[in-house]
């Protein structure tokens, strides 16, 4: 085995560097036993992933996997495919965490965008993503979703905002978001005039923006 075993508490001291590993072990042990892991910020956990701390990835998985699994299943209607993508996203996070700049955007935002892109690609049989999405765009979400309570509140807010939309606007938003359809494709699918579809979606995103920011 090469390198430090960051997650175990057993450690033989043979060289000075082993003392450093032992300290890292103790830090990890204290983090787990005091519940600090669960309260650590996304940015702190990302930094620990960059330092190859597996337990930090486990915490982020526990924090966001449910959210991502839900959107993947809604898009794909295929549990196996959804779980493949879910695992792949977190594996990509493990490999490319150093590319993530917490000052440019929020992690759950990134994860949701990547999950949706990959699911839509799978749905439409496009080539899978290249794996460089962490560098592609800034994603700024209107809330901190690091706690499960905040996530629950945000879920309620989003569902409430969508339910307030007129049926045809909500249907257009869902066709675009969950099926990845453009204006033109929605018009072809529903048989509605293109101009009508554009107006519906424009009005819907204006209303959603207002309701989500209130």
């Amino acid at each position, binding site marked *: *085995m090469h390198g430090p075993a960051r*997650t175990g508490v057993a450690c033989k001291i043979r060289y000075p560097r082993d003392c450093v590993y032992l300290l890292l072990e103790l830090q990890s042990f204290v983090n787990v036993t005091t519940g600090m892991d669960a309260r650590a910020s996304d940015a702190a956990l990302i930094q620990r992933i960059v330092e190859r701390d*597996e337990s930090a990835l486990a915490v982020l998985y526990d924090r966001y996997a449910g959210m991502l699994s839900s*959107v993947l*299943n809604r898009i794909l209607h295929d549990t196996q495919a959804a779980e493949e993508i879910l695992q792949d996203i977190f*594996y990509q996070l493990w490999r490319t965490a150093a590319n993530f700049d917490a000052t440019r955007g929020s992690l759950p935002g990134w994860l949701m*965008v990547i999950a949706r892109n990959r699911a839509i690609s799978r749905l439409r049989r496009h080539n899978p993503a290249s794996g460089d999405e962490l560098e592609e765009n800034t994603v700024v979400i209107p809330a901190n979703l690091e706690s499960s309570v905040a996530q629950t509140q945000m879920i*309620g807010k989003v569902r409430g905002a969508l339910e307030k939309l007129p049926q045809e606007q909500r249907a257009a938003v869902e066709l675009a*978001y969950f099926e*990845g359809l453009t204006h033109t494709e929605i018009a072809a699918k529903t048989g509605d005039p293109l101009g009508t579809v554009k107006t519906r979606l424009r009005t819907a995103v204006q209303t959603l923006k207002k309701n989500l920011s209130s």
Partner: protein
Amino acid sequence: MTNEHPFRDEDFDLYALGALDGEEKRALEAHVDTCDGCTEKLGQAYGRVAMIGLAAPQVPPSPGVKEQLMRQIVGTSTGRGGTFAVMPSKKPSTFSGWMWALVPLAGGFAVALVFLWLHTLQLDAQIDALKAHEVEQERTIAQEREEIDMLGAKDTVVVSMSEQKQMPQGTARVLYNSKRGMMVYNGALPAAPADKSYQLWAVPMEGAPISVGVFESMEGGANRIMAKMPPGMQVKAFAVTLEPRGGMPAPTGPFVLMGPVS
């Protein structure tokens, strides 16, 4: 709207939603490439649009996904799985005579090396699996230790939940510690209908009920939920409702169990 910024705010949301196509899409992409202000607007639009996904019915992943992920990353965390370099071989110019005698010895040595290498790979795989298991064990131990601490704390309250009229027969008990922001639910309920789930709620003194967990009950089995809650939150009751499969953001179904926090 100006000539410098020929797009309205909602255009960015439509782009992030993937609704734009053709010339509209190309024009926005070309403009964003050269405009920092619009790049920022697009980032915010991506975030707003990403939140739409939260409206999807909640479907938790199976535990196997996390186990596979942890095994996968442990296998890469130390850079194992070495590479072979194929070196150009020199043509032996004086390979003759007594040196042929070394060939069987070298062959045997090479076989032994391959055997050792394969054995090392096998051991590495076992070590990786053990490390992943160890990570999970440590998390479980920490969680159990925290639970034991909470159970022994003087300020932990016991809430007995009683069944409601014309609802499935069941019983449950909640141990709640407001200061530590922690609760443990132990209950037994009959299996929920195929399209339904049980959902546990904490009802705070102020504000709407907060979902603590969604569970499917097994016939004759018990359910146990340990959850973290905001420390210091004052809860007046715990309740279990019957909701559409996967749970809801707010209670909509009938109350199955209810227990006030005294």
